[in-house]
Each structure stands twice: as C-alpha cells, then as structure tokens.
C-alpha cells in the first residue's frame, strides 16, 4: 500500500454536513444553536451558497424572512451566521464516499481527508434532467442546454448562451430563464410543455412569460432536433393524453438554442453507497419525521430529499432536521418509526414516509394532477387525524401541514388521500 495513503488520519467529528447550499447551511446554524459545535460543512464549489449563487431573481425569503430577497442575499444571511458562529466549513472539497458506518472521505485542497462522524447530514441538492433523460430524437448539435446551465453561464460567468431560443418544459427555472434571456436581448419564441398543465408556479407564468409575451403551449413536445454543428431548429408536435405525438401537428421552429426545464432529480449517488434506501417517487431517501434515512445516523433534507419549489421550506426542513440530529448526537438514538404513511392515487408522494407517532411532524406532499376545492385527509384505522382544505391544489406547489401526534395510535398505518 502507498505509504501516504496509510498515513491518512481519521478525524473525529460529531456531525458532517455534505453540501453547503441552503439546506446544509440552515442545518449547520441550527445544530450549533442546539449545542453541537464539533461539526463540519463540506462544499464542492469554491464558495458556500449552492444554487442560490446563480438565482439572482427576487422572491426568496417571503416565508422565512417576511421580505423578498434575491438568491445571493438569502444565502448570505445564512453564510453570515456561519461566519459569526465560526462554524467550520471547507470549500473546493468533493466527498467521494459515505459509508454505512458514517465515515466520510473527501478530496480537498490538502489532499484526501477522512472523518468519522456520529451523524451525517446529506444536503447535496438536486441536478437537472438532461436531453438524454427524456430521449429527444434528432441530431446532436451544440446549443441544447438545461435551464440551470444557461443560468450559470449568464449569472455567474457573464456569458450569453443564446439568441433565438425555444424552451422545453415549464419548470420554474425554465420560465425564469425565459425572462432573464429576454432582458439580455435574446428572443424567446415559446415554451412547450408536454403535460396538459404547467409544471411551474402560476406567478412565474405571469411575471416571466405573460409579461414578455412569451407563449406557453401545453400538451406539446419536441420530436426532432436539427443542426450539424450549432442547433438550427426544432420540430414541435402536439401530443395526445398518452404523450404520443399526434401525426400532422408538426411545426418547425428556427432557433440556435433549446433550453430544457424538464425536471430535477435529487443527487443521491453518495447516499446509495451508505445504504440509504430511496423512494421511487421522490428519488430521495425514505425518511422518518426526524429526517433519518434507512441508514442509522444518516439524515437528509432539502432538494436531495425531495425537490422543493421554495427555498424557504428547504431552510425550515433543514432546521427541523437539525433539531433531531442534535438529539441523536446527545442521546445516541431516536424513537423508531413503525407507522408507514400510505397514499391514494391522487398523491404523488409524502415526506416523511414513516413516523414514530410520538412526535408532532410536518407532512409535505404533492398532488399528482391539478384539483379544485378538495380536502387532503389523513386517516388512521379509518379515523380522521388531520385535514387540510385546499381551494386549489397543483403539482407545482408543495403542500405542507402539521400533524399532531396526540390523535395518533401505534400499530396502525396512516392513509393520506384527496377528497373532492
């Protein structure tokens, strides 16, 4: 064995937080406030803040800080706290492995480092689905990029990536980039969405598309990509209810750039190594109300757990996780969660997926399709334990409500359903 490798010291720490974005920063600050000071945040990029560094638009913080901030300002509030409290963090460090025994190895500027933690917090966020993930046929020219990549080019690297633009997918970042590109002089021809309803928030349709006369076509998909070197255009078709292109509806759009805003996937490669079990619906970890995964002592929150639409709820979720992690570190274990949360066909997913029944918790969920005037009902053994009335419920909007443990009993699962 290489002599240098042998010399790697295993450093002891109470908590390692993987990812210094909004979830990791909020968790770190809250842990510190709860008395856990021997912790470390590991960030892959050169600066803390995660995706917020490139989200320069405003509207962040309305729930958390009762004021509208840009992404960088929102992140800075947490970074300032980290600096004030002297919470240890390292940047430019990529975690290579997390083991089931909570050993974390990273490449850092000082070389390889390994930590043995009592608890590991996963806050790696999510990544974008790409062209490969949705299988658009056609040629392979340059000029096809995801919305987040376009956002990084423009807002971080001062590079304008497009002139004539078509956007596929009505995710929030796609719409925000439609506006951003327009402000910088590009011409955004249209946004096409394969679903019969928008996947982003209504306010973004209004302020990012309608304000700039950018049309949104629902039930439309891209069926061909043209261009040898640079993209020259795309073929768009209407789709039927099974998302199959309808012959005869093809239309050509000339453009030099196709921006994809077709969904986000929690970034869980590290989690799988550690023995974390993922939920097929969220593509994030299965967790209990303490945000503990199937691997004991390993916790997850934020976009790595389930994709959020608002950063405010990422912070709030991570703070709630930190309260549980502090308790875990101090007491050595948490109450087992034996009650499963099951859903009907109208609910996309819930987080958590199981609970102990001995602690109040926030249930986060998404509906599968838009619904009006409905009730979201939580039952145990046929008895209603919580109800939330909704004037409208849309897949784009995460629904959250607090469920008191006082009505819960042990030995029976919870059922969540939508009644219209």
């Amino acid at each position, binding site marked *: 064995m290489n002599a240098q490798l042998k010399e790697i010291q295993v450093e002891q720490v109470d908590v390692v937080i993987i990812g210094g974005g909004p979830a990791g920063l909020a968790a770190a600050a809250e842990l510190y406030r709860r008395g856990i000071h021997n912790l470390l945040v590991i960030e892959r990029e*050169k*600066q803390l803040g995660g995706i917020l*560094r490139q989200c*320069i*638009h*405003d*509207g962040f913080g*309305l729930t958390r800080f009762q004021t*509208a*901030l*840009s992404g*960088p*300002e929102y992140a*800075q509030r947490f970074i300032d706290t980290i600096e004030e409290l002297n919470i240890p963090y390292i940047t430019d460090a990529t975690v290579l492995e997390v083991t089931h025994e909570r050993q974390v190895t990273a490449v850092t500027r000082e070389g390889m480092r390994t930590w043995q933690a009592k608890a590991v917090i996963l806050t790696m966020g999510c990544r974008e689905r790409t062209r490969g993930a949705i299988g658009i046929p056609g040629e392979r020219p340059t000029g096809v990029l995801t919305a987040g990549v376009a956002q990084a080019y*423009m*807002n*971080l*690297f*001062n590079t304008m990536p497009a002139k004539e633009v078509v956007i596929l997918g009505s995710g929030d970042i796609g719409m925000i980039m439609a506006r*951003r590109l327009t*402000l*910088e002089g590009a011409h955004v021809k249209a946004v096409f969405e394969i679903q019969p309803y928008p996947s982003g*928030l*209504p*306010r*973004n*349709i*209004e*302020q990012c598309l*309608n*304000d700039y006369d950018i049309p949104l076509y629902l039930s439309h998909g891209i069926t061909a990509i043209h261009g040898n070197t640079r993209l020259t255009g795309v073929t768009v078709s209407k789709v039927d209810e099974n998302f199959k292109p309808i012959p005869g509806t093809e239309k050509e759009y000339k453009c030099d750039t196709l921006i994809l805003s077709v969904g986000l996937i929690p970034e869980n490669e590290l989690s799988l190594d550690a023995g974390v079990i993922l939920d097929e619906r969220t593509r994030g970890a299965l967790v209990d109300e303490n945000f503990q995964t199937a691997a004991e002592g390993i916790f997850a929150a934020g976009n790595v757990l389930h994709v959020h*639409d*608002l950063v405010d709820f990422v912070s709030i979720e991570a703070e709630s996780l930190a309260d549980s992690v502090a308790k875990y570190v101090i007491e050595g274990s948490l109450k087992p969660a034996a009650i499963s949360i099951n859903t009907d066909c109208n609910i996309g997913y819930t987080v958590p997926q199981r609970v102990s029944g001995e602690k109040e918790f926030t249930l986060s969920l998404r509906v599968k399709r838009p619904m009006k005037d409905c009730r979201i009902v939580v039952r145990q053994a046929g008895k209603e334990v919580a109800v939330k009335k909704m*004037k*409208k419920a849309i897949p784009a*909007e995460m629904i959250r409500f607090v469920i008191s443990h006082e009505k819960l009993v042990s030995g029976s699962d919870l059922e969540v359903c939508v009644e219209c």
Partner: protein
Amino acid sequence: MLKEFTCIICPNGCGISADIEIKEGGDSLIRSIEGALCPRGEIYVKQELIDPRRNIATSVLVKGGILPLASVRLTKPIPKDRIFDAMEEIKKCCLKAPVTAGTVLVENILGYDADVIVTKSVPAGKLLK
C-alpha cells in the same frame, strides 16, 4: 367586465377574478373581487389596473474581483413598460472590487423612487476558476 389575474406578490400565486367597470376617462372601478387568500391580492389588482409594476434583477460587471459579475435588483417595482429602459441604465454601470451587497448602484432609477442595489458581495482578488 370580468377579468382574471394571477397575483405575483407571493408564491401562492392566487388566481383572482375581478368584476371591473371601466369608467369614462379610463378610470376603472372594482365592483367585486374574489380568489385572493390575503388582502395583498386586491392591492395588486388595483395597481395592475392603473399602473402595472415589476421588479427586475440583473448583473453588472465587476473589475478586479474574484467573480466577473455582481447581481443587482431594484428596491421597489417600477412601471412594467420601463423595464428595458432600466436595463439600459444598469448596463452602463461597472463596479470595482471589493463590492459589498446592499451598496446602492443607481439612486432613484428613471425617477421612480427605486434604487438599484447590489445583492452579492464580490471580494477583490484573482478570478476564481
């Protein structure tokens, strides 16, 4: 006349229906309004009818900083039809590192009582690669 609005004030994005009477001289009166989860909805609709306003965010060049750009935003929304004029004004600006978030870059832009403020601090130093 029944008109539909999507409130943009918060992420709820309330769908608001308002019965509006257009009076002689162009003034409008809201006869009834429904769909807003909070009072800000009605204030938004009133503003949309007389003078729709929006905030914008963009970036300005930074010389000598660890990042090439500092993001900026307006402290208050300005009339929607002046957004591109505001972009032109902001484009003329260039900052020298170090740049501190909160710094006022342009005061009272286009005379609308809104300032352009920096939203990202950029320390001086070699560009991060």
